[in-house]
Structures are given as structure tokens and as C-alpha cells.
């Protein structure tokens, strides 16, 4: 598992195992739970490598309802809503109130299912002994962002991560890309399900129907984001025509409706909506192979060196530094290209890269990371979704990244003045509740180990109360970073 690991470790001074353990658990992982640093200190690299498993990341959701079921329920809700609106036009106020009830109930159900999913995910993060595996999974969830800001997607973010992302985070990037793109979650979020080829039989049929005029056209959203965000990147050298051509390839990739019982709410290829003919994307011609046309484009995009550059830079930026060392990016890129985007090998390459173990912690934790690592310090986990409401206050509303680009990863975004004050306020409330029965000096050691600076250790020891001590620890420069 650890090609090259031993010789590189030899270059670090003996006795730095504790430092490496602290880095492994806090930078690669999600923060130390009690005893975790001791465990990792035996063999920090091996501890990380053992978390890389072919079956992928852990599945956190308590409710394993398939996204197709959620999509079906959503569709039913949308039909109810349409009926309700008609009723509002036709009938008197009293009846409208009655008719509105199932809609309100459905909305509540959507919110609740999303809340439960998010709580389950946060609990997994707070309790998992494989923090690196979970961070790696969260990286990919954020890379293929499905945001719950739209009502139609709110209910499927959790299932999307569970079904499309998590099983494949240590597989080949190509498979991850195609599985994500084919999932109803991403198709709903990026408006793919309704995209219809302008010269397809479906478009012609729709054009004949007066009331459907204006609907049933090409939607470029998914194609554009795959190029710009998911693969080659904004500087990937594609043109608007490439976006449009790729969007034409993708037509027909859709979600089964209520009248397609075996496929309802799941991926379906609608031959009739697919734009006929061969396409040219980034200089390469793709024959009309139906559903495989878009898949072929994606395979080539996944294999592109530009994708390797884009993704390896992003991985290095997430794990190591907002301005990652070019040598680290180059090492990851080399592995990526040599292995055809084998994410197991890329993850191992990251673990084995000396640049990833720099003593200076350069990454500022996002609110989610900060809250999760705080729970890990106390060996606890959030008991209810209300305890995560603070994430909204801190600018990271659950399952609601602001754009398809996902949550930003830079300190400049998260370390804003007001955000720091709000973190301090949350930390004080958290500490007031959890600190009284705990030994703050011990928590400081188990949380940060060799990363604990004498200054912060002293401040914690000198605090006048346990809550004050824990507040200082959780707001210390080294705990805010990883």
C-alpha cells in the first residue's frame, strides 16, 4: 500500500512521529477524537493508507430510501401543487385552505428528510475513526456539488452523495464523473432532465403542441459545468461551441416519469429527446451512439491532462494550502496520468508526498470542519439538527452551497471578521454546555497533540473556568487551522 512511504519517512527526524500523527489526524482527517492521536502515532502514513479502501467511503444516511423514491414523492408534490393552484383560481377561499394542506405537508417532509440526511452525515463525520476517508468523500461531494437551495433538489442531496459519490471515491475518476452526471440529483440541479435536442423527434412533437411552445429546448447548464467545474476547468481551452455540442450529446439523459414505473425517478435515456447526428467536442468527433455519445465525451474529458491538472491542484489546495506547492501538484498529476485517474493511487500519492506534511498548518477550517472537529474533541456528536443551525449563521447552510462551484476552500472567504466573532459566540455556548465535566488540559493534548503550541497550552491552563479553557482551545489559531 505504501510505495515509497518508508524512505520518505526516513527523511524526517526521528521523534517527529507525534507531529506526523497530529497532522494526519487534523489535516488529512477531521480532527482528533480522544485517543486517536495515540493510535495514529504508531505509523501515521500507514494509519491514513489503511483508510483508503476500494469499496469507497462510508454511507452515513440512516434512511436508505433511494433517490428515485424521493424524486417520485417530489413529483407527486409538484402535481398536488399544480392542482392546488388551479383550485385557487377556481374556488372560494375556504376550499383553498383545505387544498393547501397536502402541499404544506409535503414541503415539511422535504425539509425534514434533508435535515435528517444532513444530521446523519454530520454524525458520521463526528464519530468516524476514518477521518481521512470521510474528508476525501466530502471533497468529492463538494466537487460534484448538488445544492439543496432549489426545492426540487433539497430532498436528493443526501441520496446523491450516498448513491453516486461515496461508493466511487477510491475508484476511477471517469466512473465517478459519469455516475454523478447520470444521477437525478445532478440532473435536477443543473436542469438536465428537461433538455431536449432541437432536432429530436420529441422537439418536433412538442412544437406541434401549442401549449408547449417555448418549452423543450436545449439546456447547456450541465454540459457547461462539467467542462468548467468538474473536468478540464475554466482554462480548459473549450469554446462556446464545444459547450453547445456537448449539451447536444447529453440530450436524452433524463429522469423517468410517473408513467415509466420501473424507471420512475431514476436515470433514463430518452432516445426520442436525443439530438441526432455526430458531434464535435474540443476537436474530436463523436458518432451518434445514443446514450454512449455523452459518455464517450466524458471518458475523454476524464483522461485529459487538463482535468488532471485542474483536479490535482484542487486536491492539493484542499488538503495542504490555499497556494499549494507546485511540486506537490506535479506529483499528484503524475500519478493521475500514469494510472488513468485511479483515485486510490492519487490518494496514496497525497499521503506519501512530503509537501503534504509541512509543519505549518495552512488550511483554515470551514464552519462545518470546525464544528465537526469540536464535537470530535469531546468525543461526542450532534444530537439534533438544531445543534447544526449554527452552520447557517456561520455562512455554511446545510446542503446549500451557493453555486455549482460548491463551498469555497480559501481562508480569505471563511476568516472574515464577523465570522470569527460568530464562531467565538458559538464556541462559548458549546463550551458552556460541554466543558463543565471535562478536563481542558487533557482535551487540549488529545485534540492537538504535538501541534499544541506552548502559548495556547498555557492559555488553556490559566483559564479561570473550564468553559473559558475549552473556548480558548477551540478558538486557538492552531485549532482553527489544520
Amino acid at each position, binding site marked *: 500500500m505504501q510505495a515509497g512511504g518508508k524512505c520518505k519517512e526516513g527523511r524526517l527526524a526521528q521523534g517527529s512521529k507525534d507531529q506526523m500523527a497530529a497532522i494526519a489526524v487534523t489535516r488529512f482527517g477531521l480532527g482528533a477524537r480522544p485517543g486517536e492521536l495515540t493510535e495514529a502515532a504508531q505509523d501515521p502514513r500507514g494509519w491514513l493508507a489503511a483508510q483508503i479502501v476500494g469499496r469507497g467511503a462510508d454511507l452515513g444516511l440512516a434512511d436508505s430510501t433511494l433517490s428515485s423514491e424521493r424524486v417520485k414523492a417530489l413529483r407527486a408534490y409538484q402535481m398536488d401543487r399544480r392542482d392546488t393552484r388551479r383550485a385557487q383560481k377556481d374556488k372560494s377561499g375556504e376550499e383553498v385552505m383545505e387544498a393547501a394542506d397536502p402541499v404544506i405537508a409535503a414541503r415539511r417532509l422535504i425539509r425534514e428528510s434533508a435535515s435528517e440526511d444532513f444530521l446523519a452525515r454530520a454524525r458520521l463525520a463526528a464519530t468516524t475513526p476514518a477521518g481521512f476517508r470521510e474528508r476525501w468523500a466530502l471533497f468529492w461531494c463538494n466537487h460534484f456539488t448538488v445544492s439543496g437551495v432549489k426545492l426540487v433538489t433539497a430532498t436528493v442531496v443526501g441520496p446523491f452523495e450516498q448513491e453516486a459519490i461515496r461508493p466511487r471515491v477510491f475508484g476511477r475518476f471517469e466512473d465517478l464523473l459519469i455516475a454523478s452526471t447520470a444521477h437525478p440529483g445532478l440532473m435536477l440541479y443543473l436542469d438536465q432532465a428537461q433538455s431536449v435536442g432541437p432536432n429530436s423527434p420529441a422537439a418536433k412533437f412538442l412544437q406541434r403542441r401549442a401549449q408547449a411552445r417555448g418549452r423543450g429546448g436545449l439546456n447547456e447548464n450541465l454540459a457547461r459545468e462539467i467542462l468548467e467545474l468538474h473536468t478540464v476547468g475554466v482554462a480548459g481551452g473549450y469554446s462556446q461551441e464545444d459547450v453547445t455540442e456537448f449539451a447536444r450529446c447529453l440530450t436524452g439523459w433524463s429522469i423517468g416519469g410517473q408513467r415509466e414505473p420501473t424507471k420512475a425517478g431514476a436515470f433514463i435515456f430518452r432516445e426520442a429527446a436525443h439530438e441526432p447526428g455526430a458531434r464535435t467536442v474540443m476537436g474530436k468527433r463523436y458518432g451518434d451512439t445514443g446514450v454512449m455519445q455523452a459518455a464517450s465525451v466524458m471518458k475523454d474529458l476524464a483522461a485529459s491532462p487538463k482535468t488532471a491538472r485542474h483536479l490535482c491542484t484542487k486536491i492539493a489546495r484542499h488538503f495542504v494550502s490555499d497556494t499549494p506547492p507546485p511540486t506537490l501538484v506535479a506529483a499528484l498529476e503524475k500519478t493521475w496520468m500514469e494510472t488513468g485517474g485511479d483515485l486510490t493511487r492519487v490518494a496514496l500519492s497525497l499521503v506519501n508526498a512530503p509537501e503534504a506534511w509541512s509543519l505549518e498548518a495552512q488550511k483554515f477550517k470551514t464552519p462545518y470542519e470546525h464544528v465537526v472537529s469540536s464535537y470530535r474533541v*469531546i468525543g461526542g456528536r450532534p444530537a439534533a439538527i438544531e445543534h447544526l443551525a449554527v452552520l447557517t449563521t456561520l455562512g455554511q447552510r446545510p446542503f446549500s452551497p451557493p453555486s455549482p462551484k460548491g463551498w469555497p476552500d480559501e481562508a480569505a472567504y471563511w476568516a472574515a*471578521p464577523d465570522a470569527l466573532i460568530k464562531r*467565538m459566540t458559538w464556541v462559548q455556548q458549546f463550551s458552556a454546555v460541554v466543558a463543565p465535566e471535562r478536563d481542558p488540559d487533557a482535551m487540549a493534548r488529545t485534540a492537538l497533540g504535538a501541534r499544541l503550541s506552548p502559548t495556547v497550552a498555557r492559555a488553556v491552563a490559566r483559564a479561570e473556568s473550564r468553559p473559558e479553557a475549552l473556548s480558548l482551545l477551540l478558538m*486557538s*489559531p492552531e485549532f482553527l487551522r489544520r
Partner: protein
Amino acid sequence: MTRLSPSNGGLSRRSLLTAAGAAGLTISFMGSNADAAADLRGRKMVVIVCRGGMDGLSVSPPVGDPDYAGLRKAIAIPGDAALKLDGTFGLHPALESIHAMAGKGQARIAPAMASPDRARSHFEAQDVLETGAAGVYSTDSGWLNRAVQALRPDGKVQALSVGATAPLILRGKAQAASWSPGAAGEGSPRLPALLTDLYADDPLLAPAFAQGLRTEAMAETATMTASASTSPPAMSGGGVQAFVRQGQNAARGIGRTVAGFMIQPSGPQIVALSAEGFDTHANQGAAQGQLATRLAYLDALVDGLREGLGDSWSETVVVCATEFGRTARVNGTGGTDHGTGSTALLMGGALKSGGIVGDWPTLKANALYEGRDTAPTVDSRALFKGLLRDHMGVDRKALDTLVFPDSVGVAPITGLT
């Protein structure tokens, strides 16, 4: 894989209490206690735990002790500034209301009190003060809670803690209510200043945090209404006088509000509060300064209680105690370090008038504990036992065993009420 199992780190019940407290004056007293109130004939007791190690030599400066000024130098309270109690002791000038009470025989000091353990760690010493045990980590409930159990095993005596979570002193089997004056009151008032220090060399955090604090101070000033729903603001420099006044108003408001609970027919007879910010290692000040501000808040809090209790003040005892005192000598940074004996303040209309409680060991070089601290002459358990027995009616046997375990040898101080 035990680490995967759910731990008890859940926040549910307590933080819901916090949320309820922050939303207003939501509070519920368990059970009905109309008859319990009759049992106690309306007697009430308030314990204020002053956290951080309150400096007794500033709270009740022994200005008549010949060694005081020399040991304390710049941070000595000048004799003409202290509010005179007797030939030796005065009160800190910030304690005006308490001094006025003393003038009516309603306030006394125990100038050399300490808990039985000599720990100089805040956490351990607070544990000992609050558990009532003879040493650290020997029990996990508070003596005030066990006193409630002893008074009425049926749970009909009501207790209230102020703050989002129950302080250790009131934690235990007996159900106690809790009320919080608002989320902002929860944190350590020193935290902004301490974090500013921690961030001093951090190019990212230092400027951002400073800016955040400035904005927060502006927002606080803009919304401050000096009502009971605000807490003493953090001291972060600038506009100090206005801040002190606002903090005093807020503290007085909290005192009145808590008193308002206590005078209700089924209100709590026993209340625990915390006052924080007494860990004055640097720049503690003398007649004015950091410590003076904290004492001004404490004075306002107690006076708010007196005002709010009205006629019930005559049936009430308030006691302020701290985990340990501070070094007799000023240190190199204009402050004092963790010490031993300190002053306990006793207030209330139920007190008998009298002089200092316990002996004064003096500050002579050979009288100092370990050559550095006020030597304790009063065991805190003796004082608490005296109040619980004579004022609240807890019997001696329960005091010696249940409330203060294995303390037969520690006799209650008599004649306080």
C-alpha cells in the same frame, strides 16, 4: 470499535434549556411547593461563586494592617479611598451598595476564608468549593444541591441556577431550574481579550478579529437598552466608563429579575449565580481598573437582588465566595497570582450584625501561607454550614455527612443569622 458507538456528548436537553432561556424568561419550577415555602418561613439563600480567584485583599483591603501597602505597592487600595468597615478593614470603593448595607448591619466579611484543599488550579479549586468535598474529584454533585435534598427529600424546595447550564454547586439529584439572561451572558467576559492576545502574531486572525470586535462593540452600543436581557459587556478597551455603567445596569437588571423569581409564591428559595472575570494576573488596578469594574458589577448585582426582593430581603442571606485568593505581593505585571485565603462577602437582611467572621492572620511575613498568601483561618465549609443550619434549618447530621461529606470535625460558624 467502541468509538463508533454513540457517546454521551449530546447537547439536546441542556442546550434546549439554553435556547429557552435565551428566548426570554422561560422558566419552570418542578413540582408544587406552597407548603415548602411555609416550612422555611420564606427564608432565602443566594450563593454567588466568584470565578477566577477573587482578590480578597482588594475586596476588603486591610488598610490598617501595617504590611498591606508595602506588599501591594501600586495596586494597594489607598486608605482614604477604601470604604471604612473598622480599624483594620475597608471595602473596595466599587462596593458602595454593599458598604451601605454594612452600615445597617446587613453585610459582613470573612477576610481569610479558603476551601479545605490547597489546589491552585482554578478548575480543581472551584470543584472543591462547589462540591463541598475535602479534596478534588471526590464527588460530582454540589453541596447546595445536597442541601436542598436534606431540606426536603420530597423535592419540594425549589432551587434556581442562573446561566445556561447548572453550575457544579447546584448539580445533583435535586431538580433545579435554570434561567439564563441571554446567550451573550454565557461566555467568559475575558475571552475577546484573551483571544486578541493569542492572535497577536497571526497575520490572518489578528486584523480580522480586531475588526470583528470593533463592529460588535458598535452593534452592542447601538442596541444596548440596559435591560435585564443584556449581560455585562466584555471589557475590550475604549469607552470604558460607558461600558462600566452599561454593565452595572445589566447586572442590576439580572439581580432584580432573579429576585422577581424568588418572591413569587412558588419561587426558588435557593439560588446559585456565577460572576466571572476575577483572574487578575496583570493590570488589576487599584481603586479603579479591571478588578474595580468586576466588583462594580458584583455590587450592582447584589443591590439589584436587594431592590427586587423588597420586604423579603429581611429573610435573605447572600454569600459571595471564590475558589482561592491571590498572592499577597503584587507581581511584576501589576497583578497578582493564584493564592490561598480570600474574602467571603455576606449580605442580607437576615444577617446579625457583627465584626469580621474568623480571625485575621495579618500580613506579617511569618504569617503568610507558604510565605506568599493570606493564611486561611476559616474553612469555607464552616461558614456554609453555619448559614445552612441557622438560616435554612438543615440539621447538623445532614450537614456533616450528606452536604459536606466527612466533615464532622468542621463545626458550623454560629451567630451569623
